[in-house]
Structure formats: structure tokens, C-alpha cells
């Protein structure tokens, strides 16, 4: 059974400097509150893993918490560039950022292989692209047909952190709506923390509900609104204005730092 902890305890217990950490979420259910807590606790030298690093990773990269980024699409969805991500790669500010870049299909299969504890997954992809020269893939031949395919190595993060709608007191978690790769990230990681909108006495099965049993989760922390400005289907709405506004906030280093200091790092946190 998962431990029910405070967000502060959960992050302190599970995330250390230098860890590879997957804060997953595919547009929906992005674990902003947990990512902010990682920043408040001053974690450094992280390998951040995520298919779609967006505003949360822009914030973490901009604060210099990451040494390395493993990803497949780094943009502010529907808005444009991630300015802190770009600044780190283009100018090494506030520190250089090492990259391991894949396609979405590659990352998804890497997570699936990790969840299955297999060393690699087989897929069709990457062929003909320049990515092959800069990332970790290998040719593999079908032993039955001779067809050449591509192998991608499994992803096994030290820690997976995801957000869900609810958990019961045994730490069984239910999420619904767009599920992304969160289940795979949790099952493939060595440790896991799930933040939830609410703790309930009993999980009521939902259409589209995915239940992750408490016994494969290390810790569950209640964090109402913990995915804002992303959303938790049925509980909070996506704050599209915030994503648009982030383009302005993040464009200049000073504005960004001031915003982070005021809204994320201070003891009296405006949100989260």
C-alpha cells in the first residue's frame, strides 16, 4: 500500500539531487504542484524526462534544476516556444542542458518497455531522419520475416511523479480522461509519487477510469488544484490564458525569475 504523505514529505523522501525524474502528463494532469515543490526543495542536477516538456519543465529548466532533458516535443502547446528551454539550449542559461531527443512514438515505446521491465521495444520509426545520428536507437531485424525495424531502449526513471483525480486511503489511485503515459511511467520507475485532487473513502469506478493499485506506488499526496494551469478532467479546467500569458512572463530572464520567486519559491505561495 502506498504511504499517504504531504506533498513536502513525498518529494523530500523520493527525489534527490542527480535523479532521473519523469513528471509525466500529456497536456492533461500535469503535476505542477509536485514540480514546484521539487524546485522549493532546491533539487539540482536532475535528468528530467517527459514526452512533452511544457511550461512546468520550462520553469524547472529556467531555474537551473536540470542537467539533462529526455523528451520528444518541447513547446508551449498552441502558443509557441518555450523560452527558458530555448535559452538553456541556445545560450546555456542558466546552465547548459544536455539533450536526449526522441519521437513521440519512440518515447511512448520506451516507457512501455520500462513498464514491462524489458530492455528495449521494437517499432517502425526514426528511419531517414537526422535524429538517428543524435539519439539512442538501433536497427533490429525480425527473425521471422527479415524486415529491418528499430529498437529503442527502455526508460526506467529513478522517480515518476504524476497527478490524478483521486486516491483512496490505501493509496489506490484513479485517473480518467486523457491517460497519456502516466501508468507506464509509474510502473517503469524505481520510485513513484502520485499527487491527487482529493482523497476519498472509496474509489467510485468511472468511465475511462484507470486504477493504479496502491501497492505499486510509493507515496500519494493530496494536492488540490495540483495540476493547474493544466487540468484534472471533471474537477478543474485548463487555464488556457495562463499558457498564453506564460509566453510573456518567460520571454525575459528577469521577468521569469521574479515571477518564479513570487509565485513558486516564496513561502506564501500564490498558487500551489
Amino acid at each position, binding site marked *: 500500500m502506498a504511504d499517504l504523505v504531504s506533498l513536502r514529505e513525498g518529494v523530500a523522501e523520493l527525489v534527490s539531487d542527480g535523479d532521473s525524474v519523469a513528471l509525466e502528463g500529456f497536456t*492533461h494532469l500535469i503535476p505542477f504542484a509536485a514540480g514546484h515543490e521539487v524546485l522549493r526543495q532546491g533539487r539540482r542536477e536532475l535528468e528530467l524526462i517527459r514526452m512533452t516538456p511544457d511550461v512546468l519543465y520550462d520553469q524547472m529548466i529556467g531555474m537551473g534544476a536540470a542537467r539533462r532533458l529526455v523528451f520528444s516535443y518541447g513547446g508551449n*502547446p498552441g502558443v509557441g516556444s518555450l523560452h527558458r528551454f530555448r535559452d538553456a539550449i541556445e545560450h546555456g542559461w542558466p546552465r547548459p542542458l544536455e539533450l536526449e531527443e526522441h519521437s*513521440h*512514438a519512440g518515447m511512448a515505446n520506451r516507457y512501455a518497455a520500462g513498464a514491462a521491465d524489458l530492455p528495449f521495444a521494437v517499432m517502425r520509426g526514426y528511419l531517414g531522419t537526422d535524429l538517428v545520428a*543524435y539519439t539512442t536507437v538501433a536497427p533490429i531485424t525480425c527473425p521471422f520475416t527479415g*524486415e*529491418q525495424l528499430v529498437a529503442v531502449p527502455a526508460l526506467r526513471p529513478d522517480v515518476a511523479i504524476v497527478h490524478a483525480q483521486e486516491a483512496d486511503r490505501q493509496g489506490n489511485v484513479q485517473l480518467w480522461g*486523457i491517460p497519456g503515459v502516466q501508468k507506464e511511467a509509474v510502473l517503469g520507475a524505481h520510485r513513484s509519487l502520485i499527487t491527487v485532487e482529493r482523497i476519498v473513502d472509496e474509489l467510485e469506478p468511472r468511465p475511462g477510469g484507470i486504477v493504479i493499485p496502491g501497492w505499486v506506488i510509493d507515496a500519494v499526496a493530496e494536492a488540490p488544484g495540483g495540476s493547474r494551469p493544466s487540468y484534472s478532467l471533471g474537477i478543474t479546467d*485548463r487555464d488556457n490564458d495562463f499558457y498564453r500569458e506564460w509566453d510573456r512572463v518567460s520571454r525575459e530572464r528577469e521577468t521569469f525569475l521574479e515571477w518564479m520567486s513570487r509565485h513558486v519559491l516564496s513561502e506564501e505561495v500564490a498558487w500551489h
Partner: protein
Amino acid sequence: MALRTAEVTSGEVQTVVAARRLRHARRVFIGVGRPSTAAILARMVHNPELVLVYESGTIGAKPFHIPLSIGDGELAETADAIVSVPEMFNYWIGPGRIDVAFLGAAQIDRYANLNSTVIGEYPHPKTRLPGAGGAPEIASSCGEVVVIAPHSKRTFVEKLDFVSTVGHGHGPGCREHLGFRGAGPTAVITDLGVLEPHPESKQLVLTCVHEGVEVEKVRDETGWELEVVSDLQVTEPPTGEELAALRELVSR
């Protein structure tokens, strides 16, 4: 009622032309922005049965509003089915279950290969772009690809800084050699006109200009010696119905 060209923006024309392209499509794969707007418009005016698939995992979404992200709540709430990302790529995109995919890019070359990764050198880019995302496997798996891009020399380049996504590769036979399925890019819809791969050379040629656009202008904005087909078409202007639906959609 036909509208005068002056009343219509080139972006509106581009969206309308993209939507028309979906008249007979069954399943379209779309990202956000103009592709998504075009697909919703197609459902409104041309093809109410069109199945919209977003890579967030929503199959058969029926958004009333234009979504900002590919994972907006409305997409999940209106979808016929929602699947995980591994399932989306492995069971739905990879096997070629999608007819038409709309893709964008920061750079496109004469073989409709796409760059969405970097401007400059990969290790030390001048401009870091978001990256390939789902595009490489979408382009190698779907029935056909339609590229939607603004027409300028910055975008239509002689040589990509980085090949993120293969269109027609080095030309004829290249997709087959790589084991790809589908026809690859069949059209590039810009704010100036429509480019299509020549059936034999696979090089993009200008097949259609939007009303009021000079061919010379299109050539000027293209980074290679653009060929023009002998029976160059002129885009049928947006109808009143198309334009009204598009504007109503945008205003929602």
C-alpha cells in the same frame, strides 16, 4: 453570396482550402492551430462523419471550440474513445488506420521533408524548435500527409537544417526503400497556393495559386527553383458558407 477577395485574409483561404481537402477523408490526424481549425471546419461544412484523431489519445473528438492544446478537456469529453499514448502510436497510427494527417513545420524542402527541430547546427542551434513530436511516425504511417505552412523563403528552403520528418526523402522510391506505408505528402497548402509532388520526380510543384496571388510572388517566396504546372489552377474563393462557418467557429 460570394465574398470579395479583399474581405478574406490569406490565412482564412489557407484554412478553407485545407478543410476542402478533407471532403472525402474518413479519419484525419491533426495537431493544434490551423490544422485543427481546418478539420473542425470540414466537419461543419463538408464532412460531418469525419473522425478527428489527436495524438493526445482522443479518437473521434467533436470539439465545438477550437482547442488551444491537443489535450483540451473538450476533446476528451466528446471523443468516441480515449487511448493511452503508447496505444495511439502502436495500435492506431503505426498500422496506417488514419487516412490523412495534417502536419506543420518550420522548414520544408522540395521533397516535402520537414524540419521542426533546429535552425542551425543541432549541437549548437541558432534557434531551438520544439522537436519532431509525433510527426516522423505519422508521416511514415498515415495514408497521406498534408502539410500546412506559411509561404516564405525562411520556410521553403533549398536544404533543411535538420530532417525531422521524411516526406519523399531523396525522391522517387525513397519511401518504399525505407519501408514506409502511405503516399507521404500529397499537398502543401500555404497562404499563397498549393504545392503538390510531381508524380514522377516527387518534387513539389506549384499546382494552384490563391485568388490574386502572382506566380512570381510564390517563386520569390520559395527557396528553390519552383516549377509550375502548365494547367495552373486558381483557388476557388471561400464560399459564403465556408467563410461564415469559419468565422463563427473562430468567434466561439
